[in-house]
């Protein structure tokens, strides 16, 4: 499958996973990849953090207003914006003729009372806004960087929960629209991100089944981030390798080289076990992104990760998931 076809399977792609798995990096890499295939991408960040713009080499965090991060609209571009629950509520009230009261509702803390009465109302307002953007037709792909440590589970199942809880009111109507979006594979898919480690794999398998059962979403391929590339040559004895290369290395260096190689070989073995277990327990295709030895994620790193993801996408069978909607 080519990248453009993959990204066009549904307009909304929600990138979800536990904190620390590299969701933001993957979101940014997917955005760059999709824009390179000629699509106009909008990245929606829920906390206004600086990770997405930083990956595109920009300073500062995102605002409620859109920022162009790369390219030109119509010819493959990446725009990004922030949507927090408070942002979405203020806009929602303004749209419903309650502009004057909106700020006060947020600042007085009355929102706490409402939010407790209707758990997940913030999530619904955010997803309602995403739905509105989807309907506006101003971008080919909307990538949502789901809440960091907050559970994607709660975020995505709030709307369904609210349909049961709220008996009336416009918020109920909005929840119904959000549920419709989330449960339509032609409009929305969830991409789970995980690491090739025991605990992360266990968690992603659990949340995958929960998301399908409780939130009714369609899951795209699972993205395994930070995979160490396997290097068979690492099993070579350092002294022997030096001899072959016609170089002399001292014992300390040989020992250091050996320990580093052994560490990587061990990690690779654990990783292979976990990747296999993931494939066994979760029947979803995997896209793998490599472990980067540098901790900084900038435009160059995005290229590397994007290339890995593209490679995985190309290997996907065309019939995977649902039929393209356009």
């Amino acid at each position, binding site marked *: 499958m080519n990248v453009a076809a993959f990204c066009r399977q549904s307009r909304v792609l929600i990138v979800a996973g536990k*904190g620390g798995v590299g969701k933001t990096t993957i979101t940014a890499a997917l955005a760059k990849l999709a824009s390179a295939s000629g699509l106009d991408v909008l990245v929606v960040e829920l906390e206004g953090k600086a990770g997405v713009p930083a990956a595109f080499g920009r300073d500062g965090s995102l605002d409620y207003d859109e920022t162009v991060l790369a390219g030109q609209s119509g010819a493959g571009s990446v725009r990004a914006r922030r949507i927090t629950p408070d942002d979405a509520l203020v806009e929602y009230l303004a749209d419903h003729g309650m502009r004057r009261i909106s700020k006060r509702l947020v600042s007085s803390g009355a929102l706490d009372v*409402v939010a407790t009465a209707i758990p997940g109302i913030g999530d619904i307002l955010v997803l309602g806004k995403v739905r509105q953007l989807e309907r506006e037709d101003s971008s080919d792909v909307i990538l949502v960087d789901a809440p960091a440590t907050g559970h994607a589970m709660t975020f995505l199942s709030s709307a369904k929960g609210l349909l049961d809880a709220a008996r009336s009111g416009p918020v109920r109507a909005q929840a119904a629209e959000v549920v419709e979006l989330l449960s339509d594979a032609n409009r929305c898919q969830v991409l789970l991100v995980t690491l090739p480690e025991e605990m992360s794999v266990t968690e992603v398998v659990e949340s995958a089944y929960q998301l399908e059962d409780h939130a009714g979403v369609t899951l795209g391929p699972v993205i395994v981030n930070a995979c160490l590339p396997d290097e068979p040559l690492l099993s070579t004895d350092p002294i022997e390798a030096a001899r072959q290369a016609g170089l002399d290395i001292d014992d300390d*260096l040989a020992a250091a080289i050996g320990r580093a190689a052994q560490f990587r070989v061990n990690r690779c073995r*654990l990783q292979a076990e976990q990747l296999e277990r993931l494939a066994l327990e979760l029947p979803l295709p995997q896209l793998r992104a490599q472990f980067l030895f540098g901790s900084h994620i900038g435009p160059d790193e995005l290229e590397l990760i994007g290339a890995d993801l593209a490679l995985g996408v190309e290997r996907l069978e065309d019939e995977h998931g649902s039929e393209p909607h356009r």
Partner: protein
Amino acid sequence: MSERVPVAPLYSSGHSTATGNALSPGPSGTELGELADDRSVVITCGSGGVGKTTVAAAFALEAARRGRRVCVVTIDPAKRLADALGLDTLTNTPKRIEGRWSGELWALMLDAKGTFDDLVHRYAASPEQADGILANRIYRNLTGALSGTQEYMAMEKLYELAEEGAYEIVVVDTPPTRNAVDFLEAPRRLTRFLGHRLFQLLLMPTRAYLRAVSVATQALLRTISKVAGADVVEDAIAFFQAFEGMEEGFRQRADHMRRLLARRTTAFLLVTSPRADSVDEAGWFADKLNESGLAVEGLVVNRVHPSFSQDNGPRALPRAPKGSALETLVENLRGYVAVNEREEAALAQLVLRVAPSPVARVPLLDIDVTDAAGLTIVADHMFGRDGAAPDEPRH
């Protein structure tokens, strides 16, 4: 209803030695081991995904190995770790974990809802009042929805265990929240919620009074009705009516909890990963604690990449021929040296900020920590039994 507690520092009423500043956040010379030996409350905190629960469990295990009677309160542990601790269900009663240590290790997995129910029973004037609250829809949503409620219940449980005095040391894990300091403000947040002016408004017994309230407040109520439906306002009225008279009890208890956190026998243990974003959050968290008159008395950096050479600074690694096995081997070492340097660079400021508090580095292990044996290995690294002093930076 005005909040009588000064806004900042939050914990100023506490013990004077706890009022740390950036230069002297804790008694000098404190080692992590001393915290395990002489503190009665240890709270692990940090952002989500850094291994707080593992660190809390390993710390508790260490205290038991040092002969103390310890209880660890975990929140939402990964299933295998819960299994390892013998915790299969949420419970509010600690379970004893058997093992080869001279002290006693007890553990519980916080049941936030049950803890809150107990609290309601404690402060309700009558069983009827308690039942009315427990049945209310807003109350039923409270533990899941009101941000900070889970944190509040963790603090509540800690307070109960500390006051009971059945344990020499209580180790508490804090919930993974978007905002790591939520738990500091959680008790206040709930009392503020209960003390919201909607509360008094909704307690007005008849609609006649409603006419007397300000036009603005009426508009607020109407808005809530419009947006969320009239039933939400009805539920809210029932909720606040049910809680009538209990607010003072909650407020006093929140004050007691705040004092407990500020005691000299309470220590905060900051947990971070060596990744720059996580370290930034930890630094911000250390500042917040400081602003509240509390101090970080130990830093645990979890899952650091090992350093493979004592002397791998700027020393040039040999230039190996392209495509040779040596090239692969050297590049691999170079990669890990770079990772290690970046991690230490990211950590440098945080280490200074918490000085002279001890800093322990737990390496990225080639096992996953899912049992007591794994926790023992983590504890060995935290308490410097891996051949190096815990606060000696490794290059």
